């Protein structure tokens, strides 16, 4: 089926979310829709799935004008949506989730499990989506859960599949498998719309690329000839340099020294298994690894957020084991946490409050227990300007910021302190290209000031762009230590999968 949008415009109070958007998704092809956060991708997708009605413009499927009064109409028209955050019931089986809402039943409304299982099996065989219909969702890895979402929309007769940031939650291996599934769906005649801000993936999988910026289509690109830089520039509206400019590192004294550090989970199993590592001043050490191999705990044990089972952690030779997060912070550890919404900031607090989130008790922000509003506001105004947080209204709430600007705010708070060690966990996860470029520059600048920096990232590109030295984590252990100039993403990828060693 061919989908065409003509002149779609959608206005919200004070915001023109979609401005005369026209695009075509060809039958049996992959259209990548790229754009930064706030470019209008989500609004367009909600229009396509019948949640919003456009103020003007037409949706045409195979030459026929469509009117979606509600999401049901969009589903009937053959549009299926696979969301970034899955909508599955964890305690139900695969088949139960797939048929939820369209259950085959016996007389008397009793679920026909056998038929449900069969329906799921048929679809998974037809499209090569191997998954056990009887497995419980909560026991499945994320990649398989995504397949269940795909089967769900296929069972409802979707011919046009819309994927919203489908690779955001997948491991590199799962991404490869996902691309295989997309190829299979294509060969079966499905039309795919792939919403992403990962340019490399758009180039790898798409047949056509449409770029959105500020609610408008700013251009189309041919993935065969376009480069990442060109796409990034189109998205941002200015030239973007994706390579991080940095000189050779000049490592100095050891700042962070970990010896035999282990951390146990609630059941006494090791999550970190005798970690030995050092970070020196003036160098960036990158920790690569697939999500869930102990990187989160590595950062949390250094910052005192989780208890150490055994081993020693020294900051400039001083033992930090058993210190409180507050003391470790005071001793000079800055921390950009991996989950900015749940840890890095408080959505309902103002920018000014968020910018003193971990230093509100220090002078000049408070005297005794009295907070000094003026000093806080002054410092906040300087920080939002220096770190280009937009919009720079310090009385706005943190939750009102886009992902990239929220991250810049957190970076501003942590990088503005004069400290020997900076920990950056997933510093650019889910944020726009412009902010990524900016934050990478700041990390390198901090290194050049002689700060020891530990960067944890699941994005290999980021590790290679930033790190002077790479540590690879697998299953709670450091399985490799490599010099960035002497290794390759392929080699690191093998260590990440636990295959080399």
């Amino acid at each position: 089926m061919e989908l065409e949008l003509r002149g779609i415009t959608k206005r919200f109070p004070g915001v023109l979310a979609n401005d005369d958007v026209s695009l075509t998704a060809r039958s049996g092809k992959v259209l990548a829709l790229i754009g930064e956060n706030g470019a209008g991708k989500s609004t367009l997708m909600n229009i396509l799935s019948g949640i919003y009605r456009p103020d003007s413009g037409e949706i045409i499927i195979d030459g026929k004008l469509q009117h979606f009064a509600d999401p049901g109409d969009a589903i009937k028209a053959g549009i299926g949506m696979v969301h970034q955050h899955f909508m599955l019931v964890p305690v139900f089986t695969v088949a139960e989730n797939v048929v939820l809402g369209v259950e085959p039943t016996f007389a008397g409304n009793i679920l026909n499990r056998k038929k449900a299982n069969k329906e799921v099996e048929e679809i998974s065989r037809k499209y090569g989506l191997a998954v056990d219909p009887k497995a419980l969702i909560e026991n499945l890895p994320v990649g398989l859960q995504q397949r269940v979402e795909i089967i769900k929309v296929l069972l409802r007769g979707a011919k046009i599949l819309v994927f919203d940031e489908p690779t955001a939650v997948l491991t590199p291996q799962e991404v490869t498998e996902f691309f295989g599934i997309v190829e299979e769906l294509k060969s079966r005649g499905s039309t795919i719309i792939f919403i992403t801000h990962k340019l490399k993936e758009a180039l790898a999988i798409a047949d056509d690329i449409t770029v959105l910026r500020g609610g408008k289509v700013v251009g189309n690109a041919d993935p065969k000839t376009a480069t990442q830089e060109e796409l990034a520039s189109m998205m941002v509206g200015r030239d973007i340099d994706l390579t991080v400019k940095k000189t050779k590192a000049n490592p100095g004294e050891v700042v962070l020294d970990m010896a035999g550090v282990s951390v146990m989970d609630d059941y006494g199993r090791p999550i970190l298994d005798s970690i030995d590592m050092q970070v020196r001043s003036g160098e960036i050490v990158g920790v690569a690894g697939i999500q869930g191999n102990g990187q989160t705990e590595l950062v949390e044990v250094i910052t005192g957020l989780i208890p150490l089972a055994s081993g020693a952690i020294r900051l400039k030779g001083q033992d930090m084991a058993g210190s409180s997060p507050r003391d470790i912070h005071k001793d000079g550890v800055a921390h950009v946490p991996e989950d900015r919404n749940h840890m890095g900031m408080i959505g309902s607090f103002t920018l000014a409050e968020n910018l003193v989130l971990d230093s509100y008790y220090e002078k000049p922000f408070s005297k005794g227990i009295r907070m000094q509003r003026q000093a806080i506001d002054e410092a906040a105004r300087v920080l939002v300007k220096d770190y280009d947080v937009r919009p720079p209204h310090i009385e706005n709430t943190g939750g009102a910021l886009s992902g990239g600007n929220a991250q810049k705010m957190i970076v501003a708070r942590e990088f503005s302190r004069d400290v020997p060690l900076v920990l950056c966990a997933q510093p650019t996860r889910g944020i726009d290209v412009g902010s990524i470029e900016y934050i990478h520059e700041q990390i390198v600048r901090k290194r050049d000031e002689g700060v020891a920096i530990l960067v944890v990232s699941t994005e290999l590109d980021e590790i290679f762009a930033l790190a002077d030295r790479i540590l690879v984590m697998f299953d709670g252990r450091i399985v490799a230590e490599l010099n960035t100039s002497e290794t390759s993403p392929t080699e690191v990828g093998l260590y990440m999968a636990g295959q080399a060693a």
Partner: protein
Amino acid sequence: MNKNLTAEEKNELVNPKDRGFTQRLATATDWRTALLIPALAVLTALIIGVVIIMVTGSSFSDAMEAYKALLQGSVGSLRAISETLTAATPLILSGLSVALAFRAGLFNIGGEGQALIGGMFAVWVGFSITGLPIYVHLPLAVLAGIVGGAIYGFIPGILKAKTGAHEVITTIMLNYIALRLVDYFLKTSIFQREGRNDPVSKNVEATAELPAFLSSVDPALRVHAGLFVALAAAFFIYWLLFRTTIGFEFRAVGANPSAARYAGISVTRVYILVMMIAGALAGTAGAGQVLGVLGRATPGFTADLGFDGIAVALLGRSNPWGVVAAAILFGGLRAGGQQMQVSANVGIDLIAVIQGLIIMFVAAPALIAAIYRLKTPVASTQISKGWAS
């Protein structure tokens, strides 16, 4: 504000994901949800009140007559205003108790028990010490109420901090314990008035009574100095929450405990401190009743003021000044309800019904939005969440 927000971000702005529903409800800062919804909730409840009066066989003019009496009895005379403020005084304090806990993400249902214990401490200091001048004895008695409430708030606080026991469960149970402890102690020789067999305490000394400061104008004006204590408490809680590092920590823990932990705030310390201050506030409410209104303690002398504090905090959106306004509204309903019962022959139970309706509408803002066709953020969330099939 700013024009570069996408719809999604706007949605996120009004529905911050890191706060629970109760939190959002209790601490909304958007003016529309803060003022318009409560005002419409009161209006709607009063309209339904008319319907209820008419269903029970009275005419529309009877209902209007009843509301006239309600207005008369709450603000119609100096005496009515005095009664309104007398009823509002403990509600301000117990409302602040619940509101403060809400701000820190805790649901203090234990105001009742804390008020009982605080009242018992106050009444004991009030009758057992004699010969002190009022400016020593009265503050001492009030302080005893504060301490008693704080101790009783400390228990659920430390249980939550050290064992993770949910404060809703522990405070409910502690309410029962307090209620029965009061019954027990009122029968012991320490408390029981000589020559009495029923559980009633000795009378507090005149030097420990909160003076009825308008009694020289008219001896029937019961409003007492506890009102100033309550208003001072509202000012103090406002200052504490929004001007101090302690309040910053409370609000951080309430809005996002993991971010608070990340920021080096001791969440367990905050839980204990918040529950102690919340207990102290409720304890002061109990002290105010025994020292300002009753002059002694009897079983269940708090008369549900701890539970009404929950309603007051909800209606006041956990803002200290909102709590004061809500407490005065509820005080007025109560005072006016007496008048209504006497002169319009409409039972005071109707007041409880109206109060219940107000809270129900405040707790279900989408309902009010639908009735008055408001375009509120609440309604739009429903739509975007509705299409999961």
